[in-house]
Structure formats: structure tokens, C-alpha cells
């Protein structure tokens, strides 16, 4: 019986790490650009489909893990340069609307290309087995997912904390004018950050494809959950996205067998409660 | 407390954590006077002002308006009692016409009566009448249908004061009325405040010394959250402590 719980806790960690990857991108973009990306879920969806196509063509999951985020990031970069850059100076309402439009285009394009029915992606051959601890067995791919996301998270943390780019992003979150004064091209920094944040959603999309497949209408659900994570953790907070992501993942996983809708109800209830009681989240800057 | 005093504070305090922005200020503003509060940067005059308007809740002491305690009343509830304020940073309805700005301001005084949602706004003749009267007084009648945001900077500052007038208050609270005004516009504002002083009780906080000296009946000088000196302009001007407080700032 206890094994069931261990199983679900591990599942929750895996799910939580995926939520972390999605949300950390959203939160970095919000932190630096003060921009709310309602297309984030759609880019995740694109990542999943790119994984499907790459695996279908080449049979190589690892290639999709590189190609997926690159393509998603590149598309995000183009969208930023062509469209989003025109609305930074406008109120949040317009950020929301333009990214809603982008999300619709991505979703409908996905249906045009891949059809209205979801696609499933096989677990990569290398990771099809299980890992045994005594009489407890756990799928290799799910363990890989946890470890791989953690590595990405660590690399991202190093990028933000230890590089010039990271220093600029952090400084820009505090005071964009000052970064502009330093002679940095703030718009290039914005584009790169937007592409990076969205590419992280792409990574999450690829990673989740072998587990949950690729579905055209999953964007809204993913976006909603990412908002929950970001709000609970605090908008703009890296560690908040990690803790929030794991919390949401664990709650969902533990509740699946009991009352799945109840999990969603709780999660969104928690989101509302956090905004009302602690608007800067559990880890956000006041 | 005599009828003569319209606004009074008793031991007013406002603390931000350990820092006392306002530290035991007792003011008495007499009816029908122009009372200026001045002081170097960080003296606590803006914090005091915020306690009077209801923007901030004092952490200690009381505020009495016409003998009624208003210490904990929210800002919007003070308007109905007869207090109105202007802002240091011009705060208008930029996209609405100048007349509509003033009409909405006049209507605000009636509080919940503005919740009427059946009759057209224009049917509220009294508010339009107030708006037109103030337009005239501010010499803005010709620009009544211009969007407030399209007025010149000086005109916007004048309208800013007019918005407070439209509430037909008994006490006008002006937050640095000449702030950001060009040299050419300042005399206009000075004359306006001087005129208003004949009909209203005016309390203002101000940076510009020469204005304060020329129009005020009473001046309170604040320093480090406390009242340093209070009295008519000549007394304040002659006071050595005032000079050293300002020199301290300059040094």
C-alpha cells in the first residue's frame, strides 16, 4: 500500500518538474519584461507536437529534445520581434489580447497540421524499462524526466546567477531604465529572454509528450496551471516557480485516484487565496 | 475647541516601521485663513497632508474636522463633510473634457447619489452649473470642451485646483499647487490661491517660499516630523531656527 503512495509522490515530482519548466519561463518573462504571455500554453503544445513529428520521422527522441525547444524558441523570437515588441508600452490588457491571438493561431495551426485528435509518442527505447528498488518498480522515463528537468533547472539557475546575461536579466527586472543606461540593447535582451522563456515551455512540451501525448486543446489547461504556479510562487520568482510547480504536481498526483476535479478546484482556490492574502506569492518580491 | 478652528490635529503620528515620518504634530487651522505648512525635504509635511486627506491612517493622534473626529474616515468619505484636496502630481481625467472633469468632481460631493443610474448625467443641472461657474473662475471657459490632457501644463495645474473647488468644500487642501509650474504660470496660481483664501479656508503644503510668504496668514514650519515654528509670515521669516533648518538642507 505504501508503494502506491511512493509511486504517486514520484509521479507528482515528475509532473511538478514539468510545471516548473513551463512556469519558470512564464515567470522570467514577467519579471524582466513585465509582460503576461497568454500564448505560453500554446507554445508548450507546439513542443509536444514537434516531439511527435521528430520521433515519427527520425525515431529519435533525443533529437526532438534539441530540435523542439530550438524551433519553439525561434518562433517565439520571431513573434516577439514582429508583434509583441509593438505592445510593450501598452497596458496589460493588450499583452493579454495579442498573446491570446497568437495562442489561437498556434492551436489552429496545430490542428491543421496534426489533426484534431491527439497523437501519442512512444517512450524512447533507451528508457522503456523500469528501475527496481527491492519489490518497488518505477518507469525509467519518469525518473529520467525528474533528473533531466532538475539539470535544466540548475543550468538555468547558473545562467541567471553566474553570467552577464543573467545579471542583466535580473537587473532589468529591478530597473529596466538602468540597464538601458548601461548601454545594453534592452530590446535585444527582451527578445532573447522571451525566446528563452518560451523555449523552456517547449522543453516541457517535449518531455511530457511520451507520457501524455500531444493534444490540440491542452494549451488553455497548461496555461491555467502555469498561472497557478506562478501566482503561488510569486510572479517573477525562480524558486517560487520550483516550489509552486512541485506543490501543484504533488496535489494533482495524490488526488487523481481520489477526486481529480477536486484537485483542480483546490489548486485554483489556492491561487485565488494567495492573490487575495499574499499578492506577491510565497516567494515573490514585495 | 472653538468654532473658529476648522481643522485640528492632536499629537498626530505616522510611523513607517521604526521611522517616525510625523511625530506628534498638533495643528490648528483657523476658519477663513490661508495656512501653509512648509519645511525642508523629509520634514514630514507630505505625510501630514496624507493623514489629513485620509490617504494614510495615522499611527497615533487624532484629526478633527469641525469638531468631528475623522481620523479613521476613508478619503472619499471626507469629501461629503466639506474637505477637498488637490494633487501634487496633476491627476485629471485626461481623456474627458475639461467641463466633464469638473462636472464629475461636482457630482462626487453627493456621494451615493451618483449611483442614480436612470437619469442622464446632463440632467444634473446643478453639477453642470457648478462646473461652468468654476470654468469661468479659472478662465478656462473657452477650453471647456477640450480634453483635459490637451491643456497646457499651467492650465492643467489650475484645473487640478478647480477639481477640488468643484466639491464646494469648506476646507481646501492643496498639495504643492505650484509644483512643476513654469515661472510664467506661478503668478496666476498665486493670485488664484489668494482669491480663494477670501472665500475658503485653505491649507497648503508648498516648496516655493516666496509664494508662501506672500499669501499665507499662518505658516507652520516642520522639521524632522515635528513642528519647528508656527506663526505669521513675518515671525517665521525672522526665526533663526527656520533659517538653520533650511540651511541644513542646503548644506
Amino acid at each position: 500500500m505504501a508503494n502506491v503512495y511512493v509511486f504517486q509522490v514520484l509521479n507528482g515530482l515528475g509532473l511538478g518538474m514539468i510545471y516548473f519548466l513551463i512556469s519558470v519561463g512564464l515567470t522570467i518573462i514577467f519579471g524582466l519584461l513585465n509582460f503576461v504571455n497568454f500564448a505560453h500554453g500554446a507554445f508548450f503544445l507546439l513542443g509536444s507536437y514537434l516531439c511527435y513529428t521528430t520521433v515519427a520521422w527520425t525515431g529519435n527522441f533525443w533529437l526532438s529534445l534539441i530540435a523542439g525547444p530550438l524551433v519553439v524558441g525561434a518562433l517565439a523570437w520571431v513573434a516577439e520581434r514582429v508583434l509583441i515588441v509593438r505592445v510593450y508600452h501598452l497596458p496589460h490588457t493588450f499583452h493579454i489580447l495579442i498573446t491570446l491571438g497568437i495562442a489561437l493561431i498556434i492551436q489552429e495551426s496545430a490542428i491543421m497540421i496534426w489533426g484534431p485528435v491527439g497523437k501519442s509518442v512512444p517512450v524512447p527505447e533507451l528508457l522503456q524499462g523500469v528501475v527496481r528498488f527491492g519489490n518497488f518498480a518505477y518507469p525509467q522515463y519518469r525518473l529520467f524526466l525528474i533528473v533531466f528537468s532538475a539539470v535544466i533547472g540548475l543550468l538555468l539557475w547558473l545562467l541567471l546567477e553566474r553570467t552577464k546575461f543573467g545579471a542583466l536579466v535580473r537587473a532589468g527586472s529591478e530597473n529596466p531604465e538602468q540597464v538601458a543606461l548601461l548601454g545594453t540593447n534592452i530590446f535585444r535582451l527582451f527578445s532573447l529572454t522571451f525566446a528563452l522563456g518560451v523555449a523552456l515551455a517547449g522543453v516541457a512540451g517535449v518531455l511530457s509528450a511520451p507520457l501524455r501525448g500531444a493534444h490540440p486543446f491542452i494549451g488553455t489547461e497548461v496555461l491555467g496551471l502555469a498561472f497557478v504556479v506562478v501566482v503561488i510562487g510569486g510572479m517573477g520568482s525562480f524558486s517560487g516557480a520550483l516550489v509552486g510547480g512541485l506543490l501543484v504536481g504533488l496535489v494533482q498526483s495524490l488526488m487523481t485516484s481520489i477526486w481529480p476535479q477536486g484537485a483542480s478546484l483546490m489548486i485554483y482556490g489556492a491561487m485565488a487565496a494567495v492573490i487575495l492574502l499574499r499578492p506577491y506569492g510565497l516567494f515573490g518580491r514585495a | 475647541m472653538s468654532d473658529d478652528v476648522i481643522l485640528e490635529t492632536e499629537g498626530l503620528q505616522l510611523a513607517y516601521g521604526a521611522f517616525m515620518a510625523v511625530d506628534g504634530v498638533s495643528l490648528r487651522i483657523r476658519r477663513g485663513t490661508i495656512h501653509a505648512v512648509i519645511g525642508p525635504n523629509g520634514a514630514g509635511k507630505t505625510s501630514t497632508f496624507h493623514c489629513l486627506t485620509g490617504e494614510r491612517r495615522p499611527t497615533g493622534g487624532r484629526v478633527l474636522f469641525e469638531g468631528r473626529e475623522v481620523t479613521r474616515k476613508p478619503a472619499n468619505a471626507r469629501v461629503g463633510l466639506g474637505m477637498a484636496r488637490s494633487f501634487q502630481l496633476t491627476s485629471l481625467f485626461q481623456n474627458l473634457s475639461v467641463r466633464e472633469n469638473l462636472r464629475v468632481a461636482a457630482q462626487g460631493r453627493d456621494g451615493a447619489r451618483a449611483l442614480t443610474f436612470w437619469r442622464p448625467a446632463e440632467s444634473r443641472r446643478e453639477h453642470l452649473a457648478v462646473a461652468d461657474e468654476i470654468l469661468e473662475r479659472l478662465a478656462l471657459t473657452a477650453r471647456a470642451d477640450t480634453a483635459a490632457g490637451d491643456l497646457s501644463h499651467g492650465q492643467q495645474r489650475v484645473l487640478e485646483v478647480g477639481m477640488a473647488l468643484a466639491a464646494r468644500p469648506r476646507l481646501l487642501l492643496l498639495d504643492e499647487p505650484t509644483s512643476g509650474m513654469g515661472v510664467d504660470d506661478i503668478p496666476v496660481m498665486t493670485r488664484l490661491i489668494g482669491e480663494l483664501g477670501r472665500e475658503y479656508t485653505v491649507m497648503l503644503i508648498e516648496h516655493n517660499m516666496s509664494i508662501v510668504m506672500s499669501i499665507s496668514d499662518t505658516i507652520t514650519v516642520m522639521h524632522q516630523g515635528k513642528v519647528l515654528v508656527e506663526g505669521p509670515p513675518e515671525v517665521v521669516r525672522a526665526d533663526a531656527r527656520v533659517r538653520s533648518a533650511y540651511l541644513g538642507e542646503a548644506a
Partner: protein
Amino acid sequence: MADARSMTPAPAAAATAPAAGPSLLRGITLLTVAAVIVLPLVLPSTTLAAEILIFAMAALACNLLLGYTGLLSFGQGIFFGGGAYVASLLMIHLGAGLFTALVGAMVFGAAVAAVVGALAIRRTGIYFVMLTLAFSQMAYFVAYTLSDWTGGDNGLLDVPRPPVAIAGATLVDLSDPAVYYAFVAVLFVAVFVAARRIIHSPFGSTLVAIRENEGRAAALGYDTRQFKILAFSLSGAITGLAGALYAMLLNFAPLSNIELVMSEHILIMTIIGGTGSLFGSILGAAGIVLLGDLLSAVWPRWMMLLGIVLIGVVIFMRGGLWGGVESLYDTIRARRAHRRTAP
């Protein structure tokens, strides 16, 4: 803190021109009546026409919040779906008549909107939006969970369309689609005229003032919270009514009524039509419902076009369709004036 206008889309032309005289007001109302009469004549079906008016009603209610008060609410689906459920349940379980069901939906919409509004307006800017989004998702999962009442995923089936009756005596039977359209049209015009009056009342002008500069409005003596909650209630009541009419139109109350996507659709109609213009809401609803109906058979991915239009509106035409009509009108008038002055 974000300034009070941070939620405001395009400075609404109609609301910013108080100089617009009563003749123009009457003109817009006449235009609406004309549109309501012409719609069923030019469209292939009266059911489609009824759907347009129902969504126009929902968009108009959304516009009261977004265009006039500056509040971007993702909660409109709660009131729409909630209104549909309440009216249906009243009719199915309590045998309620037409008016009881409609009034019930309006009261429910107003009450829920007051609660959602009272909580959401405690925050501003993006946090306000996030709160309405969270409530919207919660409402969806509540409806999903209460499947004994709502039918869950299958929706609530066999919703009746009772006749207009007084004291048990049937006056008008609404089962004919054309008759039902007429009924919806009468309600729509009533709501439209009422909304116009409200916008031009002291209450409405205060909402615009709050949209423009909430801090100043509060300093002028307005209890801005009270106004915003009332705006929510009003919007909720109208949206609830629209939801109830929609359930009666379809004889069905699907779960999708209360989904976040419904809130998005209502918002998109409002924005494409033009925020701050009530007639724009009719244009927006008509445009999108028609586009969906005409294109969905030929090109099932017509929603992509919606995405493109949305982006186009944000970048090129922030006044929406109505804003476009207005600037076109201005251009033509300016040209004519120019021609007249020319020798």
C-alpha cells in the same frame, strides 16, 4: 502600483465624447432597432440571428466592465453558464415559467458577479485578471463536479422553452424559431436602451471617471469599490440573461458555457467590436458568430482567422470595428468639408 488606466484598452471614443448630443444617442438606438429587424431577413436562419443577439447581449455586458469601467474580466463565462444552468434547473425541477426562469438567471448572475467582483477588485492590474481567471476555473470545476445537477460533461439536456404566459394563459408560443427570435430581439433592444441610459447617467459617467483615474475619483468623494461592484452586478445580470436565453435557444445547457474559453470568446467579441461602444458589441458578436457559422463548414479552422483579426485589432485598430467605422465616417466628413471649402 499600476495606474488606474492600466486596464483600459483604447480610450473609448464614444465614452470620451460627452459632447455627443441626444440626436446621436437616438441615432444609435435607431440603428440598433434597424439591425435587429434586418438581421433575420438577411441571414439564412432566425436561429442564427437569435444566437447573434444573445452573444451581442453578453458582449455588451462585458463592455460595461471592460470599455466603461476598465475591468478586464475572465469571469463572464461564470455568469453566462451560471445563468443557463439556473434558468434550466428552475424550469426542469420547479416547473418555472419563462419570466421566473429569466429573472432567476439575472438575479443569480448579479449575485455571483457581485461576489466575484467584490473579491477581484481588491487587486488591480494583472492580479485582478488572474483572480477572475481563478474564479472562472473554479466555477467550471464546480459545474463539472455537480454532474447530478448540471449533467457534467454531457450538459443539461431537454431544457424547455416555455411560452410567454400570464397567470397560466399562454399569450405567445415561442417554439417557432422566428417567434423566439422576436422575443429575444425585444429583450435585446430593452437591454440595449437600458445600458445606453445607464452609461449616460451619473452612475455611468462615474464608471468612466474610475476607468480614467481611480485615485482621483476616490479623492472626489466616490466610493469606487461600490461603483465597481455594482458594475459587476449589472454585467452579471445581463450576461446571466443571455445565458438563459441561449439555453432556451439550444434546448440544452452544455458545460462549455461555463468554460474559460467562453469567457475568452465573449471578451474577443467585445474587443473586436470595439470597447467603449455598445453598438460595437453587436458588430463584434455578429462578426464572430457569422464567421463561425459560415466558415466552419468550409474551413473548420476559421478560429485561426479570429486570432489574426485579434492581433490586427490590437496593433492597428484599437477602437475595434466600431472604431474603424467611426474613423472612416470622420475621414469622409472631413473630405466633404474640405471639398465644400475648396473653390
